[in-house]
């Protein structure tokens, strides 16, 4: 299986096609509903963000607490569709891509094409496997949101499927 390490180069992005399965390694940031709301409040106020948006990949996820001796608890993807209201603006500001589960809107698909970025699907429900693949985890923003806080993950071999590629082709379109 194809192995890819972040950050993605333009060449790597061009070589990814909807339906491809791959193993992804590198640094990603968790953010789901409440964290996105806070990020948008910061953007609207012109304040700095807790992590660099440019070329970063957001993982739509909220982990379980880490058991002793582990970097992270169970941590599979959450439903991406709820983040359709946020994704296009973040992509236009330089976001490097997203990881989640399930289809996304036409607006998000067009933003991916416009910015030549990829949306990856993690396997929803495989929480233990993804949690186990997190080697390092650090809370970088909004600790009061508990599992919804933004975490900086270093991951090794995340099993993913290219859900929407940079050409706009979707694995969900049949």
């Amino acid at each position, binding site marked *: 299986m194809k192995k890819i390490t972040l950050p993605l180069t333009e060449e790597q992005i061009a070589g990814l096609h909807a339906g491809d399965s791959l193993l992804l390694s590198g640094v990603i940031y968790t953010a789901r509903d409440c964290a996105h709301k806070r990020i948008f409040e910061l953007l609207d106020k012109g304040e700095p963000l807790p992590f660099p948006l440019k070329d970063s990949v957001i993982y739509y996820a909220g*982990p379980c607490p880490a058991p002793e001796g*582990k970097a992270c608890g*169970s941590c*599979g993807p959450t439903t991406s569709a709820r983040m359709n209201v946020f994704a296009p603006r973040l992509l236009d500001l330089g976001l490097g891509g997203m990881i989640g589960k399930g289809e996304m809107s036409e607006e998000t698909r067009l933003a991916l094409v416009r910015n030549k970025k990829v949306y990856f699907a993690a396997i929803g429900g495989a929480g233990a496997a993804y949690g186990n693949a997190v080697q390092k985890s650090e809370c970088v923003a909004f600790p009061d949101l508990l*599992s919804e806080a933004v975490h900086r993950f270093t991951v090794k071999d995340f099993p993913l499927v290219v859900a929407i590629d940079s050409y706009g082709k979707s694995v969900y379109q049949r």
Partner: protein
Amino acid sequence: MKTVSTQEISDCVYRLARKAGLTLTDSCRDALQAAQKTESGAAEFALSALLENEQTARAENMPVCQDTGMSVVLVELGQDVRLTGAPLAEAVNDGVRRAYADGNFRKSVCDPLTRVNTGDNTPAHLHVDLTTGENVTITFLPKGFGSENMSRLYMLTPAEGREGILNAITQTVKLAGSRPCPPVYVGVGIGGAFDGCALLAKKALTREVGSRNPRRDVAQIEEEALERINALGIGAQGFGGKVTAIGVSCEIAPTHIAGLPVAVNIQCHCVRCEKETL
């Protein structure tokens, strides 16, 4: 008359919650294994990952899915049982609180307006049914919300009848698409009133995947709905395939002459449900 301390009920909820978070039901695992054998491509990749994930969960003592859910607790309470100790709801919440802390489960319950997390996954959704005899049976269903969000309630007219019911079930799964983590398990309530209909659908999800309602006409709806859903082609994770649902379970109750309520409660492929009789 039998006396049961609510502390025993609290401890039972604790045991059931701890186990449910880490394990798929046997009937769910069997259905996923069968699905994996029939699928190919990305859907097969997803199903294999899920089956392997459950083994990882057990080996590493980690929840199978990070969405350890809202805690739905069904108590069947025999009328010849006298409860002692703290009030029942308090005891159930205490069991949930301890299990979610000790199990490193995610606390996923918050105020709907402020979105402030309650911090311990309480309150549980407690439903009590009085039965005859001296038994207390407790069912624990951790309900994830990716799938709960895709559930629907239809107030059909009597004229819409059986075909209307089948359409409501199929349409709900179709509109949910890839979002609720298919292949899904579909719980359906038919009849009752607005409130009870949704509870019937939830109770249907506590049945074994693949079980059939004892009423033949209801069982036929379960079978036909499953066929129509699997003809949609959504497949595991929405990647396309023959298995969009692993099962459909319907529960039925009398309704008003003017109505035909149908509730469709979607459960993801991660069916976790534990039961114990005290």
